[in-house]
């Protein structure tokens, strides 16, 4: 069953003047932030949120989605030119992109990255069109136990898949849940953890958290690296790629568009994991794997296709289940809730223009990105020459104005600063911040679905296990939590054995 009228109304929205303008603004800002090593897509979206408050929700999501895939698209440029990934999802791009640039083929590397990203981004939107409605129609039968299990799986999956230690990521998620319990409890009206402050009654706004934990903390990273990277725009060279080059790209592009999309759909995984998996699988497939890491075209194409495919994949759970699987989509969900849009299985039927408009606009956004990142890249990359000290001051001002314009409260600004310090400490001790923000956004819904399920069952916990779907999801959550622990235990044991030998 294909909803042609919905697709048509989405297309109409996407090709309206407003639709085109805001998708352009989105991808342009995304490219800009993506270029800046240190600033990630979460900060970019959070900074844009105040602009969206009086906007039509569809246009707002079109723009925020543009920022997201634009940042991943643009992040490759600094990976290639500076060996400093603009965003985490483009780390693997630097493995072969930077060696190519060092061989004087920066232009070619940029062109390959842009084409690979365009193909990955566009092909995966086709998959998004096909799979999101299917998942929606399945998810429509989900009740509170299934939702609770699904959210729990999302949290354990992001913890086990995020870089570094799983236990740290889980603790980070628990801290996120703690912060979201501050304020009046929606069901009982109990005032929780406010220390008598009237300012905390409504809880802490998610924008304060996102800007503090991500943008302000990233400012500190910028301070540390403020003199590290310099860039000379003259060194890009020709953007031409030959027929032979393109032939080499076809294989990785076709495989990684699919694989990247699938990884993007999975909870917890995203552009970063997709790009690493893309890189390693192509290395395994390659006839001469020794070339990888020395400027291989395949090695550059694979992660660039995969990470862009994963960004569209990440929209599948967000749009069809209403459950974000990553930090970035969690922030988008937060913004949508403020605009009174509840994504979920009913979104496609109740608000087809938004559902299909966002998807359709991605085709247009990818075309804009190809133009921005291919013919215009020598000009765009001059952005990298913006002095870091100035950028740092400007980001702080954007954070302040962002929070102030939604709450008009100086108190919230102090909270923002406090979370900036917390975010910086988390970064220093390598506690991943994505599980924190995901748990913060999901925390309220998690508690609500837990309560609903328990009310339905008459206070009987077995409802989560007697229901086959939620039992499966909970089992998966347990596996995703226990597997990395077991793995690290086994590695330790092996290490000890080799040491004693």
């Amino acid at each position, binding site marked *: 069953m294909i909803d042609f009228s919905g697709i048509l109304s989405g297309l109409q929205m996407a090709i309206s003047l407003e639709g085109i303008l805001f998708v352009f603004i989105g991808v342009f800002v995304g490219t800009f932030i993506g270029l800046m090593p240190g600033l990630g897509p979460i900060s970019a979206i959070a900074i844009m949120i105040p602009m969206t408050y009086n906007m039509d929700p569809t246009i707002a999501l079109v723009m925020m989605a543009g920022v997201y895939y634009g940042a991943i698209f643009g992040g490759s440029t600094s990976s290639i030119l500076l060996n400093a990934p603009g965003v985490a999802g483009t780390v693997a791009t630097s493995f072969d992109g930077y060696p190519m640039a060092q061989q004087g083929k920066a232009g070619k590397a940029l062109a390959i990255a842009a084409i690979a990203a365009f193909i990955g981004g566009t092909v995966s939107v086709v998959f998004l069109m096909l799979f999101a409605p299917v998942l929606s129609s399945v998810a429509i039968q989900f009740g509170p136990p299934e939702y609770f299990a699904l959210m729990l799986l999302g949290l354990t999956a992001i913890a086990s898949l995020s870089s570094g*230690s799983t236990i740290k990521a889980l603790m980070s998620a628990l801290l996120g849940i703690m912060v979201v319990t501050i304020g009046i409890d929606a069901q009982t009206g109990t005032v929780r953890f406010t220390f008598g402050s009237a300012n905390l009654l409504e809880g802490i706004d998610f924008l304060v958290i996102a800007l503090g934990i991500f943008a302000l903390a990233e400012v500190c990273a910028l301070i540390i690296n403020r003199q590290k990277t310099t860039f000379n725009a003259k060194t890009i060279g020709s953007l031409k790629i030959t027929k032979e080059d393109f032939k080499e790209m076809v294989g990785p592009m076709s495989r990684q568009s699919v694989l990247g999309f699938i990884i993007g759909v999975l909870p917890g995984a995203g552009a970063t994991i997709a790009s690493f998996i893309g890189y390693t699988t192509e290395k395994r497939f390659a006839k001469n794997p020794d070339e990888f890491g020395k400027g291989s075209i395949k090695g550059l194409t694979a992660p660039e296709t995969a990470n862009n495919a994963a960004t569209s994949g990440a929209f599948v759970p967000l749009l069809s289940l209403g459950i974000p699987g990553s930090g970035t989509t969690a922030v988008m969900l937060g913004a949508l809730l403020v605009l009174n849009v509840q994504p979920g299985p009913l979104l496609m039927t109740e608000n087809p223009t938004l559902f299909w408009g966002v998807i359709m606009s991605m085709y247009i956004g990818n075309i804009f990105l190809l133009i921005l990142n291919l013919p215009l890249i020598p000009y765009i990359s001059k952005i990298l020459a913006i002095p870091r*000290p100035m950028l740092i*001051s400007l980001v702080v*001002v954007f954070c302040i104005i962002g929070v102030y314009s939604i709450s008009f409260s100086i108190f919230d*600004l102090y909270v923002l*600063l406090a979370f900036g310090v917390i975010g910086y400490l988390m970064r220093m001790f390598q506690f991943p911040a994505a599980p924190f923000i995901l748990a913060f956004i999901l925390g309220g819904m998690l508690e609500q679905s837990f*309560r609903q399920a328990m009310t339905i069952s008459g*206070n009987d916990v077995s409802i989560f296990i007697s229901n086959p779907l939620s039992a499966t999801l909970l089992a998966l959550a347990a596996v995703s939590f226990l597997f990395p622990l077991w793995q690290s235990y086994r590695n330790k044991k092996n290490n000890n054995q080799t040491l004693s030998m």
Partner: protein
Amino acid sequence: MALTVHRGVSIVLIIIAIFYLYLAFQLPSFMNTVIDADTIPKITGFLLIILSVLYFFMPVKETEVEKEKRTEAKNDWHYILGMFIMTFLYITLLEVSGFLVTSIVFIFVCTRMLGYKKWKTNSIVSVLVPLFLYLSFTFLLNVRLPTGFMPF
């Protein structure tokens, strides 16, 4: 047993969890709800304690990369502290002196403090960006930014 960095971190987390639980146990309860307002906080608090204790006893060895990440700010700590203090002052003065004046001063001083020496470019940017933001928020987004003692 040496007090390593990760043990220190886990002790701090245990203290946070205990404090949170202490508050959670003081929450009033209602008779007619199946799951009261204190259930999820209590579960969360206990889980954090369990994980922190587990983390305390884990044989974590800091890798070189992790150590570098933790200590890379060493030479720049005064810049980071300075940035936080200036942001604090910026927030405190925002409603007193207004968005325009405070932001212009903040961008100029902060950029200079972090080592950018071209004062001409710095002055132009620190005036134009806040002005642009002020005008677009006031007239395009209909958001009133604080004016402080200034008439606009």
